[in-house]
Structures are given as C-alpha cells and as structure tokens.
C-alpha cells in the first residue's frame, strides 16, 4: 500500500514538474514536429459520402520528408500515388498523371497545407489559412483547423488532427457538404 501511494506521489510530482517546466502549447507541439525530419505511417481512410450507405474504405502508406515533401500512397482498393512537393501536387492513378500547380489553386493548396504544415511544424503557414485551436495534453492532443476564408469554408468546414507527442494518429476532415473523411494513422519505423 505504502509503496503504491509513494509511487503515485512520485508520478504526480513528476507530472507537475514536467507541466511546470513547459506547459503544453501549440508552440511545443509544432516544435516537436519541426524536429522530425522524416516520418512514415500506414493509414486507413474512411470516406463517408451522402448518397452512399456505408463509408468507402481505402488504405496505404504516408511518408513525409522535411521540409515540404508529402506522399500518400494508396494500395487498396486501387493503387494511387498523391505527391505534394513544393507548390506542385501530382496524382498518379493507373495511366493517368495529373499535375496541379498549387499557386493557381488556393483551395487545394489550403487543404494540402493543413497536413504538411502540421508535419513541418510551420505555424506561419498554418495560421495564414486557418484559425488554430489546441486541446488535450502532450500524450493526447487534438488540433482543430478552421478555414479563415469563406470560399474555402464552403468546401471544408474544419479539419481535426489528433495525436500523441510528435505523432499524428487521426485526421478528420468535415466537408462543406456534410461528407466526412476519417484518416487513421499508424506510425511505421522510419526507413
């Protein structure tokens, strides 16, 4: 009994000390991301579409390389590669190759920046487009992004990114038309 209460007291003290040393802030969250140069994760995406009775499920791998390269490689149900690099978004799907210059597509750019900006720890980039709100603790945080621009808000109501320390576990996008996308992320060892 004594040992157990001692242990909890030590734990409490440690927790308090940690909290006092550095409170959990957006600054710290993004700093943690900024220090990660490269990361890899598997994902399962569930897309809920109004006219469909069940969500559509796809899965694959995510990869980020600082400062600005983000890849989403879908393996099932159909292979597809979405790559964001600098200002260019490319999509390869079967024979098709689509190339989009984000400078000419503010909506696509905003959407792309939500995840990449977070992973890169680029607060300025995020705040240019979104109002940010951080909730929770270092071990279980949730960052909500709400578009500042009305045109973008008509397409994307909000994006919620949740995770654990400098790792993302869920990205949830609520679209303007009521549809939603839920991306569950599982970190993989860096290559």
């Amino acid at each position, binding site marked *: 009994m004594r040992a157990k209460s001692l242990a909890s007291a030590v734990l409490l003290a440690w927790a308090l000390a940690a909290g006092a040393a550095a409170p959990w802030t957006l600054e710290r969250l993004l700093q943690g991301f900024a220090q990660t140069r490269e990361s890899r994760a598997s994902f399962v995406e569930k*897309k809920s*579409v109004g006219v*469909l009775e069940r969500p*559509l499920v*796809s899965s694959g791998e995510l990869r980020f390389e600082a400062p600005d390269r983000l890849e989403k490689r879908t393996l099932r149900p159909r292979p597809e590669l979405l790559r964001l690099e600098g200002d260019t978004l490319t999509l390869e799907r079967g024979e*098709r190759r689509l190339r989009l210059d984000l400078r*000419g597509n503010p909506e696509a750019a905003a959407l792309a920046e939500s995840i990449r900006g977070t992973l890169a720890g680029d607060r300025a980039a995020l705040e240019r487009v979104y109002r940010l709100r951080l909730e929770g603790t270092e071990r279980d945080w949730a960052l909500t992004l709400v578009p500042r621009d009305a045109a973008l808000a008509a397409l994307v109501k909000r994006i919620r990114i949740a995770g654990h320390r400098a790792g993302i576990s869920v990205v949830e996008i609520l679209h303007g038309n009521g*549809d939603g996308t839920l991306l569950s992320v599982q970190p993989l060892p860096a290559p």
Partner: protein
Amino acid sequence: MTRQRLAPLGAWLAALALAAAVAAGARYTADLSAFLPRAPSPAQQLLVDQLRDGAVGRVMLIAIEGADVASRAALSRELAARLRDDARFAYIANGAARGTERERKLLFEHRYLLSPAVTPERFSVGGLREAIEETLDLVASSAGGLAQALLPRDPTGEMARLAARRLAEGPRPALAGGVWASRDGERALLLARTAAAGADTDAQEAALQAVTAAFADAAANVRAPGAQLRMTGAGVFAVQSRALIKREVARVALLGVALVAALLLWAYRSATALALGLLPVLTGGLVGVAAVATGFGVVHGITLGFGATLIGEAVDYAIYLFVQTGAARGSRDAWLAEFWPTIRLGVLTSMIGFAALLLSGFPGLAQLGLYSVSGLAAAALFTRFVLPALLPAAFQVRELSSLGARLARLRAAAPRWRWLVPALCAVAAVALIAQRGSLWATDLSSLSTLSDAEQAYDGRLRADLGAADARYLVVAAGDDEQDALRAAERVGRALQPLVAQGLIAGFDSPARYLPSDATQAARAASLPAPRELRARLGRALRGLPLRAARLEGFIADAAEVHAGLRLRRADLEGTALGVALDSLLLRRAGGWHALLPLRAPQAGAIDAPQVREALLGSGALFLDLKAEANALYAGYLHEAIALATAGVAAVLLLLMVALRSASRVGRVAAPLGAAVVVTAAALAAAGQTLTLLHLVGFLLVVAVGSNYALFFERAGGAPEPRVLASLALANATTVIGFGVLATASVPVLRAIGATVALGTLLALAFAALLSSAHGDAR
C-alpha cells in the same frame, strides 16, 4: 527635237504612265501563295491548305510578362473579356474556370453520345456493376471530388472518362492566379484563334493590333506597372516578317541609292547626268512590276524585294552610254554604232538566263523571271531609243581619262597574274566537291526570317500551353460531313493499335467532338429503356453501398438519350469543342476532309511507313507536314538548278549564234563560269549553305558579268581606257548596291547581296585577267 526623236519619247512616257497605273492598282501579297506549286499533288495541296488556312496558322499565343502574379492574372481576364467580344477572334482561352462552364455542361449533357465506352455490354447488369464499382473506387480516391459530386447522375463515370481522355491529349497548362501560366509562373498565357486565315497577313496584322489595343485598354484598368505583352504564332510571324522585310528593303534601297548616287555624282560631276542615269532603273522597275501584275494577277513580296537588285544591271546601261560616248569619237550615233551591238548582246544574254526561271513551278521564281526579263528589256530599250534624245545638246560628263589610263596600265600588267584564275578555280572546285553533299540547304526554314531566339520563345510558349505543333496529320475524305466523320472513326480504329504499341503517343479526331450520326445512334441504342435500366440497376447494385433509388437522375438522363437526344454541330458553336471541330472537319472543293493530328511518341519522330501501313485500304492519307514542306522546297531547288543549267546552255547557244566562234564564246564564258564557281566556294567556306536565292544571285552574276566579258572580247581583250573606266564604274555601283544588301538582317536578302557583290567583282577581275593575253598578242 525632231519628230523622229519625239516618237520614242512619247511611246516611253505612255508606257511609263501605263506601267505606273498597273503597278499602282496591283495586288501585293506576302503570303504563302508564292510557295504553292502550279500543279500541286493532293499532299502538296493539303500542305498549303493547312499552312494557308489551317488551324495551325490561326493560332496566336499571347504572353503577359512583368508585374506580379495577381496583376498578370487580372490583365489576362480583362484581355480575354475584350477579345471575346471582338469579331476578329473565333476563340479566346486563358484557363479561367468561367470560360469552361459551357464546355463542361455540353460534355455532361451528351456524355452517353460522346463516350466511346458506351456499348450494350456496359449497360448490362454485369457491365453496370463493374462500371459503378470502378466509380466508387474513384470516389474513394484523392481524385474523387468530381466523381463524387456527379455520382447520382453519372454512376458509370462517363464524365471522368471524357475528362481523362482530354488529359491524355497532353500536358495541360499550369495555372497561376486562376489563369494559364508558364511552368515557371512568370508569364500569364492566353490562346487565341483568329477568325481570318493565317496566310491573310493583313487580317493577321489587324488581329495583332486588336490584341495590342485591348491590352493597352486593359492595362489602363488594371494597375500593373511593367506588364508587357508578347505574341507568337504563324500569323504573328508572317506579320513581323513582312514588316521586317519592308523595313530592311526600304533601308537597304535608300542607303544603296544614296551611295550609288554619290559615286555617280563624283564620276559625272553632273546632277543632270545622275538624274538621267537613274531613269533606266525607274523604267525597268515599273515595267517589271506591271508585267508581273499583268501576268500573275498578284505581285509577291519576294519579287518586290528583288526590284532593288535590278539597279545592278539597269544602272550600267546609262553608265556605258555616258562614259563611252567620248570613246566613240564624241558622237552618240557613233556610240550606238560601235557599242550598242555589244550591250544588246549582253542584254539578250541576261534576258535568256532569266527567262529560264519563267518555266519554274515555283511561282515566286517564275515571277522573278518575268520581272527581270521585262524590266531589263524596258531598261535597255529606254537607254537605246529614248535616253540619247533626252540628253541636252551640250551634255558632257567628266572625263574619266586619268582613271581609264590607270586601269589600262593595270590591265596591261594582268597577264602576269593570269594563272590566278585557273588556280582559284581549282581550289574552289576541290572545296565544292568536298562539300557537295551539304552544299545546298534542302530545308524550307533556310528561307525563314525568324531568329533562333524567336523560334525558341515560340517553342516555350507552345510547350507551356500544350499546343500541338501539328506536324503529323492523317487526312480522311468524305462526300459529305457525315461521310467524313465516319471515315475519321474508321481511321481512329486503325490508329488505336499504334497507340497501344507506342508508335504514336495519341491522336485527335473530329469524331471525338462530334461522333457521326451512326455512332451516336449506336451508342444511344446501347442504353436500355428507363424501366429496364431501373431493373438492371437493382440487380447490379446488390452488395454495393449505393441504392438504385439514389440514381433517378441517371435514369432520367439516359432516358433522354434513349428517346432521341443527339449532339449537333450547331450545339458546339462558340465553345473550345466547336473550335477544335472546325479545325479538324473542313469543307473542301468536292467534299469534306477530316483531319486527325497525330502526336509523336516521347522518343521523337513518328515512323511514317508503319502509320501508312496501318492506314492501308482506308483511303486516308498520312502527312508529315514538315517533311512535305521540305520536299516541296527541295523540289523547287532541284528544278531551279536544272532550269539555271538550261539557261546557261541557252546563253552559250545565243553567244555561239552571235559570235560565230567557239573560242570567242569561250573567252566570254570562261570568266563568268570562274566567277560563279569561286563565289560559290567562298560562300560555302564562309559557312553558308546555298539556297534558291543564291541560285538567283548566280544568274544575276552571269547577267551583269556578261556585259563585262563581252566588252573585253569585243576589244580583243584590251578595251580603250574610257571603256575600262565605264566598266569599273558600272561594277562599283553593282558592288555597292549589293554590298549594302549583304548587310541586311533578313537572310534571303543577305544571300543575294553577298553573292552578287562578290560574283560581279570577280567577273570583272577574271574578264580582265583572262582576256589580256589574247589582247596583247594582237
């Protein structure tokens, strides 16, 4: 003045007035008609049709540079809005979404008629299920936005299929600020299609000015300091090249006339003599233009540009008259008796040389031939019959005896240097034989006035806009529009395997934008009636997350097509699709043509024999426009070389008849032949590949030089000092006139200038060197 002298004067004035009237009323053109052969093959006719009023010639690429992205985009929108209201443009695109709504709506409404995937199998239970599963996969993907929005009305994904096909047409332009931009984002880009044909240079110039004015107007609305407009395209180049040639010809003519006039003024010391001396040139030029206008109905720019070169020979006639009069014991009648026969023979020699060009199938050359023959005849007749009557009674030009004496001493020393001629000829012949494979430029672009930088800029804009260069074409003919469309569909089926094999990267077809009635009817018949479709959907959707009840929009759309909705040409008017169709489906004399441009694979050129084999039996024609144009030009070149050779033979025959002695003919011909050979070798050594214009230059060297050689021959190799002075003066005017032309920035003008300046100088020098021994032996 006697009546006898008044008659020629009156005839000259009347002829001059008539020629001036004809020349003033003539139609002048700088278009490609000069290149259309008189009896074209079907492929050549297609080539020239394409160049003249095909889609390629009507495309204008517009770039806005400078300022910042936002201002460039705003300018692009303002400019597009203004030009869309301008009747001189059939179509304006700048990538802004607003401009493509109509196209999207049109494609969507007619998707079941346009999509090649629409077959009875696709609308069976199994086919529907497969198509819908595929669409759901697309909805799940990152590219699913459009598919998701259209799902209830387009569950089989026909729109995605049509969009994918358009994407396969090649890279789409990048966007910046919501409008098309270059890859690097530094330029906003617009694509315009003029209402007028590319070869209608006046209309193209008007279109060019319309863009410039609209841009200035737009720039006044949008604050964009430093924004600049640049344009390229076949029509733009035609306008610029015409302006450049005009500017250069004017500059060169002014400078040439000024220098020649200064020289003649120094030589004559008489303004009257100078004015009178230029009259043969004026007469020859006017009569030449009038003859071409009468003979061809239209005077080409090339011919006019050549007008300046007539000075080269026509000005000589007066020089001979003025300077040699003293040599002929002071009397003009004596001059006529003594020297006119020699000049007459020189004129005839020139006329026969140029007359060979009259037979050319290349209208540009034929015009040149007529111009020279009639111009020289007029100048010579004027000098012989009118000019002596116009000279004041006490007319006297400065004695050039001291110059003549010095020249005579030089000539007397010439025998020692006679070996130079065969030596130079031998070196030149070796050089020419060594380079014989690459001596002549067989590429049409050798006549182009475009700089490499301009060509590169045009290439960059084309790459940025994904605008095809339309080099390869398949042409399918039909009796009527529908027949041509069906032919295009057959060709499309024959080409499909080549795409699969990678022999061609892809192709466009008018049937893509407007399928034939037969194909539309077949696709419509693939769609089941609404009741049946509903039943099939019910079965097809089993186990899928989609309910048939959600797809009533799809059933209604399919019912409309089933009930007889069709796509007509009129529906496409004023859209990008209509513009594409108009450029690919053309009415021609005796029927319709469907054009299917092919895209070359990444690896480079298209293997023509394999495409021809695939098209065997279809009646369609495969064309490589670039190869065809080069072949046409090479054909003209070979023909011109043959004609020039025939002309030389005719000249030799004439000399033989006139001089009645092979050795005398040899003494006239040798310096001329040597001058041409050495000049050709010198040009080749200077890195020039020879073109048609060099060939014309050689003819002119023979024409002008024959006078020199004949004077030397007449005098037994040692002409009197006065005659020598007249030849030196005549040659100096020619070298100055053509030397100035050699400084022009237009390659074709430079070619003639360098050839004639060097060639005539050598002709005189060689005539002096070669004739001396004969003369001194006497």
